[in-house]
């Protein structure tokens, strides 16, 4: 049993189905990517986990127990569309959010100070939120999400609106929270960040799970047997073993070869080593971005053909 289990969740709105039997199992202490194009049902699923919406069918269990309203104190949620009370003071705002999550006033104040210090916002504690720059407001928002040290964190597009420096700082904080034992559910379009931080992913499309597994397994299963080879001589195609693909415009020194079906990497490499002056080779795995686009596109063609 995983830390967060989502079993066959169905959610219908008048006229359309937003989630159609979605299941997902998030292990404790991992960063789990929830991917999918716009309108796939990610936000609906996140809102069901947060108990903002109720599922029509299926169950959500946390730590083996069916979730109740009191469990929301164990969750920290950063929605995609951020918002703060512009007229409130930074410190008051963070403490308010912490206390809404069930912290005592003293705990919330202590935690607020610790986080403001960590993000270099200490001198802004008594300033109104509207006086802060957008980047600082995003940090305040993040602090408001983690102030109560929740064991489950849900980030919806956490990096949107951050400049590269702050995005890096945020990534470091998220990884640190994971190392301290928090489980993190990460919803995003940003595939580069998925490859960097996520261990597992689930890809939703048209209200259903179309792909799920660990990032490395998914990449392995999507590999197309392409090897980037570096030699000192020009390679000729070999009909028995491989064909040659058009040159990668970025890495011009590499030759991309695609292995024929059933050919092992080491057979091709040893043949190449015998016939050319081989200096190096790497297996080319598809990026999460390519997998995402490929899966969603093929899904949509199937749907359209039906």
């Amino acid at each position, binding site marked *: 049993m995983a830390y967060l289990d989502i079993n066959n969740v169905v959610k219908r709105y*008048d006229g359309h189905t937003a989630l159609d039997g979605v299941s997902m199992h998030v292990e404790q202490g991992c960063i789990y990517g929830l991917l999918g194009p716009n309108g796939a049902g990610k936000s609906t699923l996140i809102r069901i986990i947060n108990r903002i919406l109720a599922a029509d069918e299926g169950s959500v269990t946390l730590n083996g127990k069916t979730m109740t309203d009191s469990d929301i104190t164990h969750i920290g949620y950063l929605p995609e569309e951020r918002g703060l009370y512009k007229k409130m003071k930074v410190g008051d705002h963070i403490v308010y959010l912490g206390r809404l999550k069930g912290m005592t006033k003293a705990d919330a104040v202590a935690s607020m100070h610790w986080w403001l210090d960590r993000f270099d916002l200490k001198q802004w504690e008594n300033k109104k939120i509207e006086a802060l720059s957008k980047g600082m407001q995003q940090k305040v928002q993040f602090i*408001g999400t983690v102030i109560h040290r929740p064991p489950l964190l849900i980030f919806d597009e956490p990096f949107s609106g951050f400049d590269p420096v702050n995005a890096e700082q945020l990534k470091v904080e998220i990884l640190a929270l994971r190392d301290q034992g928090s489980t993190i559910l990460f919803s995003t379009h940003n595939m580069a960040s998925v490859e960097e931080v996520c261990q597992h992913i689930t890809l939703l499309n048209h209200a259903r799970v179309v792909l799920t597994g660990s990032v490395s397994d998914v990449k392995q299963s999507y590999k197309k047997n392409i090897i980037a080879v570096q030699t000192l001589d020009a390679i000729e195609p070999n009909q028995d073993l491989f064909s040659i693909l058009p040159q990668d415009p970025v890495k011009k020194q590499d030759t991309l070869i695609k292995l024929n079906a059933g050919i092992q990497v080491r057979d091709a490499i040893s043949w190449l080593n015998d016939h050319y002056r081989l200096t190096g080779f790497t297996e080319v795995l598809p990026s999460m971005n390519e997998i995402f686009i490929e899966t969603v596109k093929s899904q949509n063609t199937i749907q359209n053909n039906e």
Partner: protein
Amino acid sequence: MNKLRLIIAREYLSIVGRKSFIFMTLGMPLLFILIAAVPAVLAYFNDKGSDTQHIAVIDDSKRYAAALHSDDMYDFVVLQGDSTANPREFYDKAGGSIDAIVVIPRDVDSTGVVNIYSEGTITPALASTVRSAIADTIESAHLAAMGIPNLQSMVQQAHVDVDVRSVKWSEQGEQESSTEAAMGLGFMLSLITYMFVLMYGAMIMNSVIEEKTNRIVEVVVSSCRPFQLMLGKIIGVGLVGLTQMAIWILLLGIVGTVAGTALGLNQVASASPEAIAQAQDLGAMQTIMQHVLSINYVPIILNFILYFIGGYLLYSSLFAGLGSAVDQPSDSSQFTTPVILIMLIAFYAAFACMDNPSGPMAVWCSIIPFTSPVVMMVRLPFGVPAWQLVLSLVLLFGTALAITWLAARIYRRGILHYGQKASFKDLFKWLK
């Protein structure tokens, strides 16, 4: 419960801390004082500032010029033996040394017409001074012409002012009451309820829309139930309203005391005729005050509080529910117009019911929940049968709770609804 308290506190402090709230709370009484004081101040400067007007009088009747007495404002100069003079010629000859010419014709007794000529403005004050002076004199002349001795004093004796005192039989025995005092009190309570519900209903709606537009609402409802947030807002804003009212009552008390002391000192200082007239006015005031005080306040205040809470809950949850359906304050009018219309109808009904507080319209409007908080206020000081009160209150609170429940269902969906403008049809869908 703890979360509800937090939400109430945040809502309350966020409004009370605003500059606009402080400005409004202190500014409103000042504005009222200004509105009340401006005409008096203007009149004062008008009287002081203007010079004495010189008025020439041509008296063809040869009898009534004496009725016009000169004072600070008007200096009447009777032109002797100039009965044939053309007023225009005389005015021009005077070359601006006179402001107007009053011409009393020979046949004024029968026609009752007096002319005033001027190139400048003839003030209503001058016209009325002339009118009353001449009319009084002609009237006494007429009476005298009848040849009955002491007729004048007989007429004066015959004149009476009738004071109607209403006495109500109640359990406490005979009670003298005043319909005017009851009407005034009823109207005041009705107005307070109407203004309060509209003002703070709009405030709640803005607060809901604001949370929705700046997207904080999703964070908040991931920590509490939407119903808690809505209820917290309604209670928080309601407390703001009560605070504002308390401050106003306090200010009223202070101003009243200060003004009362100042007046009292004035009276001691000068026993001028005006002061005596004022004292007489005060005597009349005292009778009115006695009537006002004779009203049995305890049940009225208790009922006022009950209706106030019920009405506020009813309308504020309506406003909260409707506010959740829009993204911007400017889009809200399509939903608020019907609500404001119902409020207006209630207010007009209250106005119409003042003449007949026990008539069928008053009774029905004070039982129907949407109009009862405003209309019942008008009826309360006159006494309302117990069964009507109970029925009306049960209906009001039943409806208010039902509306709160329905509004919460709309609110739950509305706060997460962005983009396409919601219609009434959508609202009904959300209720399901």
